[in-house]
């Protein structure tokens, strides 16, 4: 992963706002994320963290504002081949095996630098290749959906509460994966209630509760 993201990438949002049921969740939100940077969204429940992530993913239309990938409007850029999202839903099929799920993710995206075996090893799921996902525990499923980030090539990770249902060891593991991604030039936008330990990383924090 030495020269993965040597080109400079950036994600910029200007003047974003989101209104839900006549309630302003946030407005006038500006941020810019460059290589090696992490954006941590904070705020109490219901303040619009997930809505913001879904706007960034393009699932939801923002009520105001614009977003740019490498200074080009999102829809006209290469954005969707450069990003990966792990949300509340795992995005894996219960009736498929671990291997079949990962192959499907690969088919929908560009292959990254790691092989499937290497990735399974990294997320401590080695040996589970042919297990059906429905037989995995919640934490294992979570790690499988995070494995998707590694087998595909993407510079921006968008993570919604990545530490849900993951044990202490798993949290360390994810932090080290995130650290590796960032030090290779990747970017991460995430929400988390867990105190993030990312040494040496350039972490920006936005408190959405204060964005009215």
């Amino acid at each position, binding site marked *: 992963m030495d020269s993965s993201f040597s080109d400079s990438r950036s994600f910029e949002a200007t003047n974003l706002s989101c209104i839900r049921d006549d309630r302003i969740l946030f407005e006038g939100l500006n941020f810019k994320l460059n290589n090696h940077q992490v954006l941590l969204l904070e705020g109490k429940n219901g303040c619009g963290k997930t809505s913001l992530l*879904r706007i960034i*993913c*393009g*699932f*939801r*239309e923002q009520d105001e504002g614009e977003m740019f990938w490498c200074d080009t409007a999102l829809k006209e850029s*290469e954005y*969707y*081949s450069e*990003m*990966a*999202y792990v*949300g*509340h*839903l*795992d*995005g*894996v*099929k*219960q*009736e*498929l095996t671990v291997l*079949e799920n990962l*192959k*499907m*993710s*690969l*088919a*929908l*995206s*560009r*292959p990254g630098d790691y092989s499937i075996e290497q990735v399974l090893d990294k997320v401590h799921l080695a040996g589970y290749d042919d297990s059906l996902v429905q037989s995995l525990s919640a934490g294992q499923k979570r790690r499988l959906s995070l494995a*998707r980030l590694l087998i595909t090539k993407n510079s921006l990770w968008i993570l919604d509460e990545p530490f849900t249902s993951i044990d202490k060891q798993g949290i360390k593991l994810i932090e080290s994966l995130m650290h590796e991604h960032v030090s290779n030039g990747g970017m991460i936008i995430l929400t988390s209630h867990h105190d993030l330990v990312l040494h040496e990383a350039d972490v920006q924090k936005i408190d959405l509760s204060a964005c009215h």
Partner: protein
Amino acid sequence: MSLVSAFFAIIRRDLILAFRRRAEIANPIFFFIIVVTLFPLGVGANPKLLQAMAPGIIWVSALLAVMLSLDSLFRSDFDDGSLEQMLLSSHPLTVLVFAKIIAHWMVTGLPLLVVAPLLAIFLGLPEQALGTLLLTLVLATPVLSLIGSIGVSLTVGLRRGGMIISLLVLPLYIPVLIFASNAVEMAGNGLAVDAQINILIAIFFMSAVLAPLPAAAALKMSVN
């Protein structure tokens, strides 16, 4: 990976899933068989009557059987987040949706092709109409999946979309029903059916080209 391999990967995945959820897949085909066999019990075993009604019975049952299975087209993908991942793919969603529709037809439409001729003989449909029945099924069951995909993608975000799907989709199925059952009936009477078949071919191509577009657009709205 390329669009072509993504296309086939989706078909392959959906077929594997169908195979592992056999009970769910067997439902529409059993429904079809049961509905068709109930008719002789309901209207009486009068061979003349059954023979006259056979094309209609078979086509109405096929239509309802496909409609029953529509919900499974996007439901599980919507519930487990696979649909979100498809939306985020750099491949056009229209093509991925088209792959899903093809897989859906292979598990619901194709079995109907095998069972329908048997049930047609059972209802006393003249032998000369069997070829036409098969031809109309080949042409029109994909149309049922294609048009149905628009209805399900609009309602997949609703918890109880079942009733709305039938209201949305059944009116659009009516042309298929009219031309297909009419063709089978005419063939049974030894008449030419070129006109009906040509119209079914036209409907087939039109829906193959046009249906995945609104379906993909509606899915994007449903996910939001």
